[in-house]
């Protein structure tokens, strides 16, 4: 085992804390630390928020805190799912969107957006609800196309995923062409920038996140065993098919819930596990919890960048993560000779 003076978990935790703080401190309006401290003190003591502090209070607690929470939840869900899928499919290019979550969520959202719901509770909930349903239904479709009896062969999953993804993508493009009015809104959503703020998204995502990631965290050993192939894994006593169903199921739930509110954010699920593998190796018992922390930190940093890079405009965070993709892959390519994780 690699011996380290500081366990990587602490480093990851520290990185996450730093990212969380940064996300709270940074925005298109700069708040002084003094004001922030005064607001926190006022709230904790149950006293009145004076008029001069109201702006800082609103910005901190109505805007930045819920957004920070949502971004952290999304980043961690994407990174852990990405790591799990890379292990499940034994493929370094696997990411959480492989079997339809993104294309399904996008299609669901665009369908509702092209119907032009009004402004009321139902109308606002419609987009996240439709994208969640779209994501789940698409995964179900992929799975039912791929299965052979009770088993889920990996190759079938990959092929069915490719087919369904392109079909859903084509439908989405067609709908986008037809609904010129909502085009901007749909494109912004698809790029990973949903403007729905507040605590409702966080509360909606939380149960799926807890269940999904809670179960995925226990899958480290199983994923390790599965690196030897389905046959050897089964011969070693691992119920391969059941494991695969579970991982796909909970991972889809967690990522579907996350992207329903934040839009499709790419590259997190791909990059973060790879980066962590380079640092701590391919043992999934370590990789999964580290991906949780690292994914949250990564997306928080990307979100901070999205907020300050073109102020006052806030870029969709998906653009930032996509822009980091190219240099990342080039770097991986250069180091690929020393990449010992894929045979």
């Amino acid at each position: 085992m690699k011996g380290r003076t500081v366990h990587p978990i602490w480093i990851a935790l520290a990185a996450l804390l730093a990212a969380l703080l940064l996300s709270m401190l940074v925005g298109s309006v700069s708040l002084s630390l003094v004001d922030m401290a005064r607001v926190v003190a006022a709230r904790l003591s149950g006293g009145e928020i004076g008029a001069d502090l109201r702006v800082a209070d609103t910005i901190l607690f109505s805007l930045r805190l819920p957004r920070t929470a949502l971004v952290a939840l999304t980043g961690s869900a994407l990174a852990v799912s990405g790591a799990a899928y890379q292990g499940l499919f034994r493929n370094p290019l696997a990411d959480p969107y492989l079997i339809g979550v993104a294309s399904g969520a996008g299609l669901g959202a665009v369908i509702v957006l092209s119907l032009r719901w009004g402004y009321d509770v139902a109308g606002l909930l419609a987009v996240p609800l439709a994208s969640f349903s779209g994501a789940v239904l698409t995964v179900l479709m992929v799975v039912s196309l791929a299965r052979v009896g009770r088993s889920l062969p990996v190759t079938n999953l990959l092929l069915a995923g490719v087919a369904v993804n392109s079909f859903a993508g084509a439908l989405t493009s067609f709908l986008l062409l037809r609904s010129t009015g909502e085009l901007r809104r749909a494109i912004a959503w698809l790029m990973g920038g949903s403007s729905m703020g507040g605590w409702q998204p966080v509360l909606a995502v939380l149960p799926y996140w807890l269940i999904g990631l809670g179960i995925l965290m226990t899958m480290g050993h199983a994923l390790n065993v599965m690196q030897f192939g389905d046959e050897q894994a089964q011969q070693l006593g691992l119920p391969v098919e059941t494991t695969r169903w579970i991982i796909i199921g909970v991972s889809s739930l967690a990522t579907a819930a996350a992207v329903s509110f934040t839009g499709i954010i790419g590259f997190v699920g791909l990059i973060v596990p790879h980066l962590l593998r380079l640092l701590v190796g391919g043992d999934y018992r370590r990789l999964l919890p580290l991906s949780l922390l690292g994914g949250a930190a990564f997306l928080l940093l990307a979100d901070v960048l999205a907020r300050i890079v073109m102020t006052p405009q806030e870029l969709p965070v998906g653009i930032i993560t996509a822009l980091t993709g190219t240099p990342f892959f080039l770097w991986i390519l250069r180091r690929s000779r020393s990449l010992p994780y894929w045979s």
Partner: protein
Amino acid sequence: MKRQSVLLSVLLLLALLVSACTSAATPAATPTASPIVMTDGLGRTVTLAQPAQRVVSLAPSNTEILFAVGAGSQVVGRDNFSNYPPEALELPGLGDFMGFSIEQIVALNPDLVLLAEIHPPELVKSLEDAGLTVYYLKNPLAMEEMYPMLITVGELTGHKAEAEALVTQLSLRVAVVQQKLANIEERPTVFYEIDGTDPSKPWTTGSGTFIDTLLEMAKAENVGRAMDSQYGQMSIEALLAADPDFILLGDANFGVTPEQVAARPGWGELTAVKEGRVLPFNDDLASRPGPRLVDGLEELARLLHGVTLP
């Protein structure tokens, strides 16, 4: 040292989290004489204790209306595209349809945020969640529906009398145009180009838009009505078949000139090109639901019928 700062950060974060769960006590609002209660374009009830003194306008049309009714000095922020009147450019730009900085809007401490139909419901909710008062102006479908928008904004900002005077003035101007057009028999066909980046399929507008309404009021035939959508692309072949009398360049603001149009492949065959009836048009006069729509109508009457107006 490292341990200490980590500990400090953890404590700060915990403090933030805990205080998020407590509710802030806000000072009681002082009661005023007569609060303003109105229903906005989304059916929401909006209440203002007094006329709004710090207004943020997130649409160019709203900015124009605010200045037109005399509330220009009460506007504290605008969207990036608000450019008329020129005084508006001095106000801080807060973003555009790609995204608004809610933080900066909050930092301006507005008592009213004016939205238009180009904004999604999510924006309304985000602004409400940040504790702001939002009024959403729905698009008018006819000139008569534009006038109440001006009155509404006048009421919201304490300039009702001015707004009413403005409405009277605008209606008069419209009446003048209609009277001058009353005796004119011909209805020229018009192609209104919104975007000609792809000359084989230029974008135009169908029925149901302001431009279409204005063209109708200016006694012109909008060839774009052949399409069944509000905005769409018409192929150059269909355009050649329709052979409009006039081509109005709504993208003139982006630098498109009649010379460029004449040089496009296939466009040289159009009658309007051959007879020099490709005319630039300030799209802001026809696409922003506000008082300048009347300017747009007058301009159309001048360009298409040669009407002289005071």
